[in-house]
């Protein structure tokens, strides 16, 4: 496939070179002139070009230029920040460029409508589809890193196809904190299914006032996605063809496991006697080691999928006349993961999208009746890997003993049979992870359809009525086959088994809006919107079954029917099924009024009422109002004098409320589980159902609300070369839907209550600079944001939200490792703090003389032990000494981008960084798990003698309090995780720019590197840790073995004709 592509491309290149050669150049006399602006000031660096040629000149410091051209020839004069002008060449000509207002006339999507960017009163970010496409990411979110101040993006893991965690203006809730995704007006869509090249624009609504029109679920902000649409006037179809291919490597930061001999040495140094009789339990392998035939298994490195391929192919067609406008695309992308060998993870997605709109009645260049549809169908197939917590696949690879061979000397898998053959008995029940991985065969497909159909009627120019029906359908199908196996003495299955499952779920929304816009007395423009919408869960069902002892015993032929005998005679058979009866989730009414005076003073008010089925009658409805106002100061007559340097200045402010109801349904009633059973029959084959209440209801449960006050300004300087956006905000999220801790004595699980609040406050600042020097166009963008996250109150009995204990090890169990507590950031790390490591005996004696309380007693202390801080000086180390030892949220995030364009060559670099956050990391469970492997970064961290380190203790058994700290978490596992990542470097060449006559609008080839450089002091694999405890969605920054993001090297071609 790709070879053919290359062939086609190279033919194009040769042809275009030929056309280029034919270009004629006429010699003419020199004509000089000057370019000035409306304020009669010279315009520096303006381009004066003969259209269609490469002949041209650039104005100097006085705005003057000289060009070889025949008088009367059309010249094109352009400069960033000004409207491009065509004039006839004449000697001594003075050309006056008008300021380009296009930027201000640009419209952006705002939810149930669009608005001129200039008139926006809230804080939103607009990213164009072109900018997204240029980054060549599989998921559009991956392209946003560097350009979205105030939006923190963290990949959930480096598994291909893994989604992203998006947090807008700080973590605002203990529940689901991801923003509402609205795709072409349909709320609740899935960005993972969209092909980035299909996106026309992404608009992120950050403040409450902007998001308020989505009241109900907008507490975490809103991401509006518009897919590419055909446009009126595009009579000739535009066809685009994009393809790239590349390979990936894991960003391990050098982390790997130790060898067998290093491991045995480390275990000995830690004083663990378990391998005293190693010769006896591993006779053959000890011989291998001595002979240099083998030196242990580094499971993590074994699982690396070297040069994992990634490729993508997209074809798109857009066009449109008066009657029909269309946009169609087909995309296929495939990525293999960098880990998981010999059966690496992968993600395969095929997407077909069709957006069409039909003008049924069109008068005076205006659609009176319009009907349209947007549909995306995606087919996905993937194989993943668990990445969160101790015991995840990645953590297993890092902790597995190196003493078990993965491969026999002859290159075959080292199976249990070989363990028996060699008398390998170094540890109990050690499974060869690679063998285990090779066992199971599975295939699964997901089909998702999302889209909408709409009808727009505009009886008069001012009024637009619209109704839209949106839908989402997900279905998935899978088949799995496990042959009979024996991996260890106790890990075996004596029969083969097959499992098949299928499920379908549907959702739909229906909305009705009326929009009226009119300008009165030339200066007053009013736009009003009213609407209603309903969201519902539709029909759904799932079935699954398992059977054993298949007829043929092969993966290809295994299915639920390829088994002899009835279902009841199969002892391992199981079947299951579920169904969803349709119900309405959310019923909403909303209205918005925009008013502007002379495009100078703007005011917007929004109110939305939402009813949710998640709450009991009387607690269902939430009303979410907002107001915002803007003032374009630069349009004031008294500001004309500053026009020279200040092109545009707008001040804006907003206040509003939004809601959140994302909890599981029926918490307001006490539900009865029927899952129990007991058998009162003598022959023991008639179990009867047992019923019991499984929760303690809370009938008063209602909405969570976020309230935000925001002030900011947009400014452009120096004829809009420099753009500056500043924002300040304070966002309070209250009435959190909190599930109080479940005391065992309750006897059932507790229901949520409305009981918590957090304040996020911060500033965002972004700069952009666009300019041109000669033929070199360049732009530089830099943005940064600061956010402070501070819990205000928690209304549970203990006054804080407990996180999970036992994060690092089963026996670091006494207190949760993180919590949400008033006065602290959500999910801050909690534990015992230390002030260094005892370097020598003298230091220990000094501490003793000063009355320091030793955790293990003074006599037991040794150089290399941790100096724990007894916070309250009471002589014991307990809960009262546990303090904040880290904060997983970055204080600052930074994004930057540089792009250069010279003739046909384009080059861009962008990156992002996060600073001030900590990660809790351990690639080993110390306490009670002494015989796990070591990673090299851990080995490097140990104290090995005076002066070696002051932050990590000496080697010892994991049950030593250095690692276990009276069963409390501690700061020896905390690291700063500041990082700066170069996300994307792209170098491209567009033949069209140089060979104007080739029959393409664009023929660009490019090479891209993603994630090539990470600057960090963090010693783990990837400082951008997307995992938390895996239990509480508000926990983050916990690394017990993380699937790192890949480095990607790729090349591709992009053609438009």
């Amino acid at each position, binding site marked *: 496939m790709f070879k053919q592509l290359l062939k086609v491309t190279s033919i194009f290149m040769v042809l275009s070179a030929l056309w280029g050669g034919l270009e004629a150049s006429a010699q003419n006399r020199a004509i000089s002139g000057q370019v000035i602006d409306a304020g009669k000031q010279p315009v520096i660096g303006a381009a004066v070009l003969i259209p269609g040629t490469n002949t041209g000149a650039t104005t100097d410091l006085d705005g003057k230029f000289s060009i070889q051209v025949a008088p009367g020839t059309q010249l094109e004069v352009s400069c960033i920040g000004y409207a491009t002008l065509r004039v006839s060449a004449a000697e001594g000509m003075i050309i006056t460029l008008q300021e380009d207002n296009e930027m201000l006339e640009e419209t952006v999507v705002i939810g149930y409508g669009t608005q001129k960017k200039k008139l926006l009163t809230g804080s939103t970010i607009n990213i164009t589809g072109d900018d997204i496409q240029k980054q060549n990411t599989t998921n559009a979110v991956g392209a946003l890193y560097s350009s979205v101040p105030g939006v923190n993006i963290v990949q959930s893991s480096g598994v291909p196809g893994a989604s992203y965690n998006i947090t807008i203006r700080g973590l605002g809730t203990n529940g689901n904190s991801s923003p509402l995704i609205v795709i072409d007006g349909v709320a609740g869509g899935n960005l993972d299914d969209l092909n980035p090249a299909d996106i026309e624009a992404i608009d992120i609504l950050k403040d409450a006032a902007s998001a308020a029109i989505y009241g109900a679920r907008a507490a975490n902000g809103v991401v509006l996605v518009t897919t590419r649409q055909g446009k009126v006037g595009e009579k000739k179809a535009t066809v685009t063809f994009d393809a790239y291919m590349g390979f990936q490597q894991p960003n391990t930061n050098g982390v790997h496991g130790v060898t067998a001999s290093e491991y045995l040495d480390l275990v000995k140094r830690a004083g663990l006697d378990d391998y005293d009789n190693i010769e006896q339990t591993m006779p053959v392998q000890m011989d291998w080691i001595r002979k240099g035939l083998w030196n242990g298994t580094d499971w993590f490195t074994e699982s690396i999928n070297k040069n994992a391929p990634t490729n993508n192919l997209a074809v798109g067609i857009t066009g449109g006349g008066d009657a029909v406008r269309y946009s169609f695309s087909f995309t296929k992308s495939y990525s293999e993961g960098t880990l998981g060998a010999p059966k690496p993870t992968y993600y395969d997605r095929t997407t077909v999208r069709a957006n069409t709109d039909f003008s049924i009645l069109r008068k005076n260049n205006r659609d009176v009746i319009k009907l349209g549809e947007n549909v995306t169908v995606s087919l996905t197939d993937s194989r993943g890997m668990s990445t969160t917590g101790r015991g995840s696949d990645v953590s297993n690879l890092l902790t597995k003993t190196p003493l078990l061979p993965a491969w026999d000397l002859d290159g075959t898998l080292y199976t249990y049979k070989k363990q028996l053959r060699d008398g390998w008995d170094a540890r109990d029940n050690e499974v060869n992870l690679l063998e285990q991985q090779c066992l199971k065969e599975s295939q699964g497909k997901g089909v998702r359809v999302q889209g909408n159909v709409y009808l727009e009627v505009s009886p008069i120019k001012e009024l637009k009525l619209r109704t839209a029906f949106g839908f989402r359908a997900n279905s998935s199908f899978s088949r799995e086959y496990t042959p009979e196996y024996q991996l260890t003495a106790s890990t075996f299955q004596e029969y083969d088994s097959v499992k098949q499952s299928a499920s379908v779920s549907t959702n739909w929304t229906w909305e009705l809006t009326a929009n009226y816009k009119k300008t009165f007395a030339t200066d007053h423009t009013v736009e009003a919107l009213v609407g209603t919408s309903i969201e519902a869960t539709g029909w759904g069902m799932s079935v699954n079954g398992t059977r054993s002892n298949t007829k043929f015993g092969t993966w290809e032929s295994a299915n639920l029917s390829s088994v002899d005998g009835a279902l*009841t005679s199969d002892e391992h058979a199981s079947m299951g099924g579920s169904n969803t009866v349709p119900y309405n989730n959310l*019923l909403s009414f909303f209205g918005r009024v925009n008013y502007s005076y002379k495009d100078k003073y703007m005011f917007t008010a929004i109110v939305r009422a939402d009813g949710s089925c998640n709450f009991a009658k009387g607690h269902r409805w939430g009303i979410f109002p907002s107001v915002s106002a803007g003032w374009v100061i630069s349009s004031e007559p008294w500001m004309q004098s500053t026009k020279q340097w200040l092109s545009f200045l707008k001040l804006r402010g907003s206040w509003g409320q939004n809601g959140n109801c994302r909890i599981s349904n029926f918490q307001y009633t006490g539900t009865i589980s029927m899952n129990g*059973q007991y058998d009162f029959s*003598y022959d*023991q084959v008639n*179990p009867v159902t047992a019923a*019991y209440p499984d929760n303690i209801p809370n009938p008063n449960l209602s909405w969570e609300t976020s309230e935000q006050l925001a002030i900011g300004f947009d400014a452009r300087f120096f004829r809009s070369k420099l753009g500056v956006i500043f924002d300040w905000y304070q966002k309070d999220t209250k009435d959190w839907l909190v599930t109080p801790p479940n005391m065992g004595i309750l006897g059932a699980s507790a229901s949520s209550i409305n009981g918590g609040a957090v304040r996020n406050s911060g500033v965002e600042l972004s700069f952009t600079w666009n300019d041109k020097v000669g033929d070199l166009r360049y732009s530089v963008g830099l943005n940064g944001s600061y956010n402070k996250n501070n819990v205000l109150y928690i209304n549970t009995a203990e006054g804080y939200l407990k996180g999970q204990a036992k994060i690092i090890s089963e026996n670091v169990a006494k207190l949760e490792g993180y919590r949400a507590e008033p006065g602290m950031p959500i999910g801050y790390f909690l534990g015992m703090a230390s002030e260094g490591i005892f370097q020598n005996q003298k230091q220990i004696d000094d501490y003793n003389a000063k009355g320091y309380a030793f955790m293990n007693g003074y006599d037991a202390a040794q150089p290399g032990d941790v100096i724990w801080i007894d916070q309250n000086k009471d002589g014991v180390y307990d809960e009262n000494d546990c303090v904040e030892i880290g904060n997983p949220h970055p204080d600052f995030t930074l994004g930057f981008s540089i792009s250069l364009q010279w003739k046909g060559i384009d080059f861009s670099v962008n990156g992002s960084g996060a600073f001030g956050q900590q990660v809790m990391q351990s690639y080993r469970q110390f306490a009670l798990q002494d015989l796990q492997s070591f990673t090299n970064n851990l080995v490097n961290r140990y104290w090995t003698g005076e002066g070696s380190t002051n932050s990590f203790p000496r080697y010892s058994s994991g*049950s030593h309090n250095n690692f276990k700290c009276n069963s409390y978490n501690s700061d020896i596992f905390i690291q700063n995780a500041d990082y700066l990542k170069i996300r994307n470097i792209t170098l491209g060449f567009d033949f069209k720019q140089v060979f104007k006559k080739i029959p393409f609008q664009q023929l660009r080839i490019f090479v891209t590197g993603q994630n090539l450089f990470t600057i960090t002091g963090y010693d783990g694999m990837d400082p951008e840790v997307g995992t938390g405890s895996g239990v509480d969605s508000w926990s983050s920054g916990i690394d017990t073995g993380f699937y790192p993001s890949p480095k990607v090297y790729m090349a591709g071609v992009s053609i438009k004709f």
Partner: protein
Amino acid sequence: MKKILYTIAVCFLVLVSCEKLDSLLDTKNYSKADTSSFPRTEKDAEQLVNSAYSTMHSLYTGSIFKINLFRRMIASDDIYGAGSKSSKETTADDRLLAPSSDEDNSVWKSFYNGLFRCNFALESISEMDDNLFTGDNKTWYLGQVHFMRAFYLWEMAERWETFPLTLSTQVENMPKASVDEVYAAIAADLKDAISMIPAKYGYSKDNNLAGRATKYAAEALMGRVWLFYTGFYKKADMAGVTKSQVISWLEDCANTNVSKFDLEKDQRELWMYSNEYSSGFAYGVDFGTWAHKENLHWVGNHSKETVWGVHFSYTGSGYNRLAEWLGFRNSAQTPNAQSYPYSAGGNGNASVNPLFVKEWYEDKDYGPRDKRFYGTILVTNKSKIAIAYPWYKGDIELPDFKGHDSKEIERTWFYTKKYQAMAAYSDGAKTTLKKNFFNIVNGSISNSAKSGNKNDAIYIRFADVLLMLDELKETTTGMNRLRERAGLDPYESYTFERLQKERRYEFATEGMRFNDLRRWYPETAGQIIEKNQDGGYLEYLGKPNTYKELEGRSFSQRYALTRGFWMIPQEQINLQQGVLEQNEGFKDGQSYLFVDGDLPY
């Protein structure tokens, strides 16, 4: 502008307050009933009662620490600690230590689930109209739930001594109750069960009646609890329940005519080692097993001797984990063929204390002629026995059994047979060897020595009812029935020592001994167990050694601190914010954790 906003707001309020609109959002839970509509019928009520029973199954999943029966077995002087280094729970249990600070957490939650479900059933069934029920079913249901709640409370009391006493569904953060409050609650529930469960429901093989709590189970449990409370706390009676009341209840239970419970003819036929598939009786073939030689035929689950036990279903989930933990260690070194008919699929945590074996073997009133001796003790490895135990001249059932040297840490070569996992051939020609004979009994049961054991976990045997009566009345009636059954001569008169011995041998390795010692010798039980265990022969990773105590944390020292009670899970202490107090012996600084390397070998 204001006007427009005002109008919109009013419109919304009107819309929102409209009842019809609101009802668009009404949803019905089709996958679960809720408390507003449940229970409505007799069947609903019955299902609530069933949940009081089904919670018992959750005591048999997860950590072995959950099972009181097992814990008492290991902690007593019947059995030593562990078969394997990795079975830390057992080693810790044997020495009254904790393997982790939250080992008890899931069992704590399971017990409170049980209490909550009982409380909910009692509250909601009581409120139901009497006419909804057939005959006297309402009181029958309520009586069973009272029994179940008493059972949970008792198991908790013997485990943690005292705890927050939740007797209604309205639960708030509360401290431990006093010991007397706990026992008063148990006594009240048992009295209710005795009076409410109709006397007509005795032992039964009828569908829907097998395994239910009966009036007689309540009477027997009353005897068990009363004896423990009055003995351990040295009281004359328990919450107003007098000795004579207890005697009359036990006599009612012992009355075979009313209760229909009785002794089986041979105690050895109570245990699944006598099943006919393993011995070959089922196929008319002699597989040469001891059970075949002794002509033993398992009476099956739901024996008439089981006054109270946990039952499992062949077709439902839930299984008895005792066999998994006591069963032979499964490894390359211990294949099934070597251990047949016993299944090598377990963890081997059941090394019987050789000093106990010797005492029994040499007791002139008992000795190996006591049918119960070989019915309890499994003797293996002829050559090792000859060296380690020169006094032993008896039978060796598995002479070639080799065990697993590099794993077993307190191996004595004596194992317990009761609850032992059993292998079997699926036909007389020995074509297929099943790891678990239950798989032959019913094909839907997993052929696993771990997850396929569906044998009853027996809490109260009829034999115990007889011995409790002897102990209370100082008679020999019951003892002599048991002695006769065991092939021994009757005693002529009652002595406390005889009663003690009879209990010890009758219930050997059944998890009774620990609490018997505690109630007879509340202060010194620790010293007794220590004395009875220390110095016994064992092998640590194949090397001969003797049973030793941990320095500074010997059994008697731990017992002096804990009095045999267990740790309150740390997580619950944390969750209850200082309202719940840790038990003595498990507080900070009391060195209660057992960790790798602590064993003194």
